[in-house]
């Protein structure tokens, strides 16, 4: 055979040594693993959760995990002051004789295939009674299909792709808003501004060119068309690019009345620096969450971005509100505020826990029925949705998003008026204070 005829390096005991060296760390690793498997009580309820804990979106995934873990702690132990929240004040799930929730976390690495495999593992090996996920829409599409085949309810807390619901799946429920919801919010906001006498004749949409930016931009263009707002330009760009002068100069030439950015973090900061260098500032900048909500945005670009508007379903709110109390708990533990993404995860978790409690059983079909019957009012949530109630596709019909404006070193809620805690600054001042 060919493989036998090839020349080889000198024979020696080296081969065996290599084998040992290969195996030793692996064996050690497996030995450690056997020790760190956590023990659990008999009446616990296991929920599987898949996040992107490594890869490009690891930061968002870790933050989501922190939020969901705090959510489980709130459900499992008494938290006086959170009476309005289902399961907030008492300990455990009264519907299951006080059973506690145990989270079974897994990393999907932002990879659909890994998400599918981990979902299968959590369901068939660990016997979780329900799933929570996913951040990436691509992973959500594949993981929900795996859960659908196994007949296990899957709550999507934050993935926005339109077609995650609406494929005829019976086990998928999404608590969070979808891209058309955001787009509608922007269009309504701009229409309100116009009614208030502000000049909004044309807008521009600047979006990063992967699935997130592309899909949100498409929804914004559709909503603008419906609302009769002219779009001067849509400018896609590469979020990893080192220079955005061309895009800013294009905006400077077009002079739109508002610019909507669908951008990640580093590119958002780069845009503000470039706009200052080229001395271009539109009357209004709207950011679509992501980069504008990243913890590093305000420290890096805050002094340049005064008056920038951002969307969020989460607002810390006034003392006494659910959101305020929960944010205090989160801040005490992690030394930062909850952001929109992590808050959406926590709300998704609470909806699932409430459904399991009402189901009074860990049977998947009972939990599915309880999820279908979910009807939570806005005062029973920790996020700014108008409520949680699923339509026949599993989409929350009362999901919503709000607009917040950067004033000083933090965001304040400015739209819609019934949610506003401050007055909109118009036009934005940027770095010209």
């Amino acid at each position, binding site marked *: 055979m*060919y*493989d*036998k005829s090839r020349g*080889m390096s000198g*024979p020696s*005991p*080296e*081969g*065996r040594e*290599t*084998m040992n*060296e*290969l195996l030793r*760390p*692996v064996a050690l*690793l497996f030995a450690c*693993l056997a020790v760190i498997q956590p023990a659990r009580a008999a009446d616990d309820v296991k929920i599987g959760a898949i*996040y992107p*804990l*490594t890869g490009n979106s*690891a930061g968002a*995934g*870790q933050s989501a*995990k922190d939020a969901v873990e705090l959510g489980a702690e709130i459900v499992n132990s008494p938290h006086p002051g959170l009476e309005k929240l289902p399961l907030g004040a008492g300990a455990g799930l009264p519907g299951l004789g006080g059973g506690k929730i145990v989270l*079974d*976390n*897994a*990393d999907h*690495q932002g*990879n*659909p*295939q*890994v998400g*599918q*495999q*981990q979902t*299968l*593992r959590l369901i*068939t*090996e660990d016997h979780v009674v329900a799933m929570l996920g996913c951040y990436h*829409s*691509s992973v959500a*599409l*594949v993981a929900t*299909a795996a859960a*659908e*085949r*196994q007949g296990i309810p899957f709550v999507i807390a934050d993935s926005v*792709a339109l*077609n995650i619901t609406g494929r*005829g*799946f019976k086990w998928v429920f999404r608590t969070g808003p979808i891209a058309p919801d955001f787009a509608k919010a922007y269009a309504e906001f701009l229409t309100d501004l116009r009614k208030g006498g502000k000049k909004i004749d044309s807008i521009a949409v600047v979006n990063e*060119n*992967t*699935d*997130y*930016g*592309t*899909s949100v931009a498409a929804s914004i263009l559709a909503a603008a068309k419906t609302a009769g707002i002219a779009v001067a330009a849509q400018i*896609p760009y590469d979020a990893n690019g080192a220079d955005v002068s061309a895009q800013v100069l294009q905006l400077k030439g077009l002079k739109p009345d508002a610019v909507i950015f669908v951008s990640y973090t580093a590119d958002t900061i780069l845009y503000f620096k470039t706009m200052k260098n080229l001395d271009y500032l539109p009357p209004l900048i709207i950011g679509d969450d992501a980069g504008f909500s990243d913890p590093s945005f305000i420290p890096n670009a805050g002094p340049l971005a005064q008056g920038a508007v951002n969307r969020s379903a989460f607002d810390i709110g006034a003392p006494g509100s659910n959101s305020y109390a929960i944010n205090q708990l989160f801040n005490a533990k992690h030394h930062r505020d909850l952001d929109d993404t992590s808050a959406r995860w926590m709300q998704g978790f609470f909806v699932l826990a409430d459904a399991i409690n009402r189901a009074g059983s860990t049977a998947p079909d009972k939990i599915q029925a309880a999820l279908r019957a979910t009807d939570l009012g806005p005062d029973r949530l920790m996020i700014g949705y108008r409520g949680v109630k699923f339509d026949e596709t599993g989409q929350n019909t009362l999901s919503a998003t709000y607009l917040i404006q950067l004033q000083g070193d933090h965001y304040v809620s400015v739209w819609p008026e019934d949610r506003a805690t401050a007055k909109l600054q118009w036009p934005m001042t940027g770095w010209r204070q």
Partner: protein
Amino acid sequence: MSSDHWRRAGAALAVAALLAYPLAASSPYYLDIGVTVLLAAISASAWNILGGFAGQVSVGHGMFFGVGAYLPLLVYTLWGWPPMAGIPLGMLLAVGLAALIGAPTLRLTGHYFSMATIAVAELIRILVGTWGLVGAAIGLQGPATARGWWDLTFRDETPYYYIFLGVLAGVLALTHALQGRRLGYYMRAVKAGEAAARSLGVASRRTKLAALALSASLTALAGSLYVLKTGFVDPDSGFGILVSVQMVIVAALGGAGTLYGPLVGALILIPAQSWANSWLGGGGSGLTFVLYGGIIVLVARFEPGGLFELRRRMLRWRPERSRAA
């Protein structure tokens, strides 16, 4: 028994184990790992024809995998055809692509060829990500539930396992047959020394192009199988650099340029990857990738020829020791 008998008995045992695995797999999760192993073995075996036997190390084979993955879902999305109708189209397109990019890139040798393949694959990934017809950055989806058996959308993964196993057997048989043919000898001659091969009358460019075309079409087939199983593809999961790199690592771990090397590599790497992620991933510490990287470093440092090289050395070493004793 002679060593040939042992070899046959071992091979029979391995085949029996592969055939019986779905019966032994205690849950869909273990079955899924089995299916993933077979898929990795198919794509690495396809890569191995060019990268292993012909010695042209492509780090851009994701471009062929992606073409194979996109075509089935594209014909489904555009015309509602069963996805498997896209498999031959994907393989054909991959051959066309191989001819197109092979002409300029195969002039390059060594690292320059590897770099060129990365560049082309990335270029295609970006183009696909901005092209609306193929779903742009959002990607394409297959039928959520099967309209009939011909959609090859199964609730249980057992049929995928046997389909993949059959394809792997076909790819290995083809590779084995190739080893004894003129093209196979030419490929090894080109690998051993292109100038020397040319001086002996081997048409080296044509040989490399043939190896690339064959390798590309089989890699596209692997991509099609992937997408039948997952029902979804986007630019990253089809054309991403990690797709290309995995083929190289799997083949290199088992032994690039050997018939069974890619299968051995997949049998070790994929379960290690899955288990490491299952046990360590939930903690969010990133240890999964430390383990993965660790394996690569160990192989590169101690056994660049892969596990087959290691086995050969151990086989040679044993009789000598017994003689010495």
